[in-house]
């Protein structure tokens, strides 16, 4: 028993490999994802639903863009900045991308230290992740302000296809909301880690259930998803 666990730490005893295992899980007449905690399974299912929402946004944007007879504004130029007299295309978005990727890196390490029950490092890395996220939202606020000043509205813009504005505010706005909620989520969980709630199995004020360090991984799932969505927005909205 112990040896099996040691050999493959993440495969619980009784796991059948391959498609036979999938069939066995789904046909088990019990819960399908055996040994996957409810918290994690539910977060994944929530993220799947969120995937559909973002897919619909990106799809409607694609449809709008492909069907206009008026030229689409060139994102490379729209999101260019003048830095020290130099005109650098798309630089703002590039920096935002690097910041979000870095936040994913610190989050992944936070999960690791969480399972090692290193309270201080876990909380510090989660707060670093939150700080990156807040920076991202701040840069997005700057980006929105700049575009609104230049006359971009949900119903029009100075450079061409009117749908540019509605797509931009819809997609980046919804993503920014996700980041903001993620920052709040991160700070809340980081506080619990810092306080040692998961070491003493302190009960939550709302659910009155015992907390576990697994919540750090679940928070991480949400956070990485936000980064994941940005990968697609970066490719389809800014690079197209």
């Amino acid at each position, binding site marked *: 028993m112990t040896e099996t666990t040691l050999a493959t730490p993440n495969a619980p005893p009784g796991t059948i490999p391959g498609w036979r295992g999938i069939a066995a899980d789904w046909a088990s007449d019990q819960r399908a994802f055996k040994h996957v905690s409810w918290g994690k399974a539910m977060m994944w299912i929530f993220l799947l639903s969120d*995937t559909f929402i973002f897919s619909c946004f990106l799809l409607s944007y*694609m449809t709008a863009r492909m069907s*206009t007879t008026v030229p689409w504004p060139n994102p490379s130029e729209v999101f260019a900045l003048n830095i020290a007299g130099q005109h650098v295309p798309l630089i703002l978005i590039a920096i935002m991308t*690097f910041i979000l*990727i870095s936040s994913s890196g610190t989050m992944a390490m936070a999960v690791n230290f969480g399972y090692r029950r290193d309270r201080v490092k876990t909380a510090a890395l989660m707060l670093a992740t939150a700080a990156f996220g807040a920076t991202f939202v701040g840069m997005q606020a700057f980006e929105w302000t700049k575009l609104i000043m230049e006359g971009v509205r949900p119903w029009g813009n100075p450079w061409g296809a009117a749908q540019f504005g509605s797509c931009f505010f819809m997609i980046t706005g919804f993503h920014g909301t996700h980041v903001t909620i993620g920052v709040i989520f991160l700070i809340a969980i980081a506080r619990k880690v810092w306080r040692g709630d998961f070491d003493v199995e302190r009960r939550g004020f709302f659910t009155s259930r015992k907390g576990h360090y697994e919540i750090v991984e679940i928070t991480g799932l949400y956070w990485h998803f936000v980064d994941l969505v940005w*990968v697609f927005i*970066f490719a389809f909205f800014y*690079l*197209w």
Partner: protein
Amino acid sequence: MTNAAVHVEGQATQHALHTYVHDAVASGATHVEGQQHPIKLYLVVWGWLFVLSTCSYLVDFFGIHGHLRWSLILLFMVLKAGLIVAVFMHMAWERLALAYAILLPPVLVLVFVAIMVFESDYTHLLRVMFFASAS
């Protein structure tokens, strides 16, 4: 004589086994609990995400156009998404029943994409026909 030897040997083995199990349990307390991968793995993935993002940015910076642009952008996008889901979100180590339940539905969205491409072509055609100023 032989019996004694076997006995001593057996005891030694048992002792060694006991220590081994004890160690396993001790390390298992932190090990079995959840996803444990070396920090180096995360740093390597982090590095790759930086490299791939830079590559995507350079595609735009150098003004590559046409099919090459799209091939490169989609390639870097898929690689980045794959790294994030597989390593950062630990999908590579999840139960297969969960992995397929989560990963297959988004793939089916591609059918929707195809439908909307046809639909937008049709809308575009109508606009060109009825609203003059085509581009």
